[in-house]
């Protein structure tokens, strides 16, 4: 069941404490957004920039937009994408073409329009200047969700980026330009270290763990591995989960994940209570 307490009028709540999230969060809007640019990055990855003045200025790191790709007439649902960058009244997405929606999106041209619903979801907690040192861990398009966090974080840290091959390593230069240290791994060794992204992370934590906090976005096995490392070292970790979505705004209950409660666990919504959850809250066992 969804957590209660919310008959009051909806209000801003992104970044609010996780203990009692109301069913409705950051005031979202639906807005027609014109495409400014839509270009290939590397391999199957594209960067899309749109004008979305009602959404862009209010996005918190880790939040997402739910995009209606209008040429996709027989596929109805919107597609969720993390907001990658924000500049004035524009926002950018970094997306991977994997299916009919993202492929149709990749064919769209500047001047064409999308419908955006956003900003949606609970994002990452932005590190405090005097807080823990952030270690970001990204797999593939997971980078998109973490860039805004790095940019907004007053405390610089390390970024661990992993992928299958060189083309999966995104925005390395951008993170370095922000003054963050970047550690790259690829499974085929075509760029950076050969291996999976959690290996250099494990090494780093063995070297020095205290005072660090993990922030991760990527495939579920990677997130679970990050969670295990956090547990081993007693560190906090915020994980951004990936679930198929219907509405994106908390009504369809398609996107739920099992979250621990006093008595056991209950389903909470990735689109509303998430996509970012404290790793200790997630009842992984119940999801199996």
């Amino acid at each position, binding site marked *: *069941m*969804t957590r*209660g*307490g*919310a*008959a*009051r*009028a*909806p209000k801003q709540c992104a970044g609010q404490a996780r203990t009692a999230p109301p*069913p*409705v969060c950051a*005031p*979202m*809007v*639906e807005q027609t957004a014109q495409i400014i640019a839509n270009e290939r990055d590397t391999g199957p990855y594209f960067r899309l920039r749109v004008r979305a003045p009602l959404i862009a200025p209010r996005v918190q790191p880790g939040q997402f937009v739910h995009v*209606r790709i209008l040429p996709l007439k*027989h*596929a*109805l*649902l*919107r597609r969720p994408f993390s907001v990658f960058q924000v500049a004035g009244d524009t926002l950018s997405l970094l997306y991977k073409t994997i299916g009919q929606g993202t492929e149709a999106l990749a064919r769209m041209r500047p001047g064409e329009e999308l*419908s955006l*619903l956003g900003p949606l979801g609970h994002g990452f907690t932005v590190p405090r200047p005097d807080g823990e040192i952030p270690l970001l861990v990204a797999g593939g398009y997971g980078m998109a969700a973490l860039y805004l966090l790095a940019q907004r974080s007053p405390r610089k840290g390390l970024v661990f980026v992993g992928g299958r091959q060189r083309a999966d390593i995104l925005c390395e230069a951008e993170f370095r330009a922000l003054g963050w240290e970047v550690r790259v791994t690829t499974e085929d060794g075509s760029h950076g270290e050969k291996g999976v992204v959690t290996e250099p992370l494990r090494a780093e934590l063995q070297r020095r763990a205290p005072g660090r906090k993990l922030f991760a976005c990527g495939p579920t096995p990677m997130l679970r591995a990050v969670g295990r490392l956090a547990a081993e070292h007693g560190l906090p970790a915020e994980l951004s989960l990936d*679930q*198929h979505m*219907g*509405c*994106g*705004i*908390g*009504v*369809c*209950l*398609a*996107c*739920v*994940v099992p979250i621990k409660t006093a008595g056991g666990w*209950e*389903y909470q919504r990735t689109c509303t209570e998430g996509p970012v959850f404290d790793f200790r809250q997630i009842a992984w066992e119940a*999801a199996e």
Partner: protein
Amino acid sequence: MNLAVQIGGLALPNPVTVASGTFGYGVEYAQLLDLNQLGAVVVKGIRRDPVRGNPTPRLVEVTSGLINAIGLQGPGVDGFIRSYWPFLQQLKVPTIINIWGTSVEEYAEVARRLDALSGVGALELNVSCPNIKEGGAQFGTDPALLRQVVAACRAATRLPLITKLSPNVVSIVPYAQAAEAAGSDALSIMNSYPAMAIDVETRRPVLANVTGGLSGPCIKPIALKLVWEAAQAVRIPIIGMGGIQNTADALEFIMAGATAVAVGTANFYAPQTALQIIAGLRQFMRQENLADVRQLIGCARAGKGRAPEATVRHP
């Protein structure tokens, strides 16, 4: 210009409502649209106790539709009253509460408890959820059981009762008539249609529940035919739904005999749909010189509409 309609004693300011399970508890949409413009708010189905629902995946997109197997996750009557009723109660438009149970007694109990709330618009009896084994569909595909459920709820409340029928029957007529005879004030037609999808990569059903309910524009022609048939078999009003996404769709249902319509799946991808349809109906009535939306109800039946010659463009 009159858009108001009556659903068995319940006055709706206009005929455009939303479909249960696609609009949460109303509050979630309050930021995106003015709920007080709707004909009514219809909330997600609730039963007596909290319900955890099915494992995921719960939803899969298919051609011009989607299949869901949410499993009626919900807070139960108490949770609903505590968490959502204070918000809903302050709305100017009626709230219709969709309820279900796993036994005739449970339906009646939920009806009785909601009867005690002040300000409820109507109860919609979901006897047709395709995703619940005991309860749900079984009541909607057996006319005798359907009659018992409706009669028990009728005895438990004086609120208007709307029975939401299953499409998964040979003919909707006996079910529509059973609900009417047992005291239902109106019908909702239709719930989602039993369906499934297989992932050819994993070679497994996509949904954790294996099967689910098909909704969206793909089912509209089926829903329309059921409304058409039921409207000729009963005297109580019908709320038509199934794939409605624009004014023309809503008009088709009204012309087939529905007194009101509900927007379901379209809320997920186009949250303004219901409001756009209300505006579209007004525009249609203006163009067609109609003073009252009720003039359109069932007008596609022989002898009720206009001659084919007198065509005009619609919005």
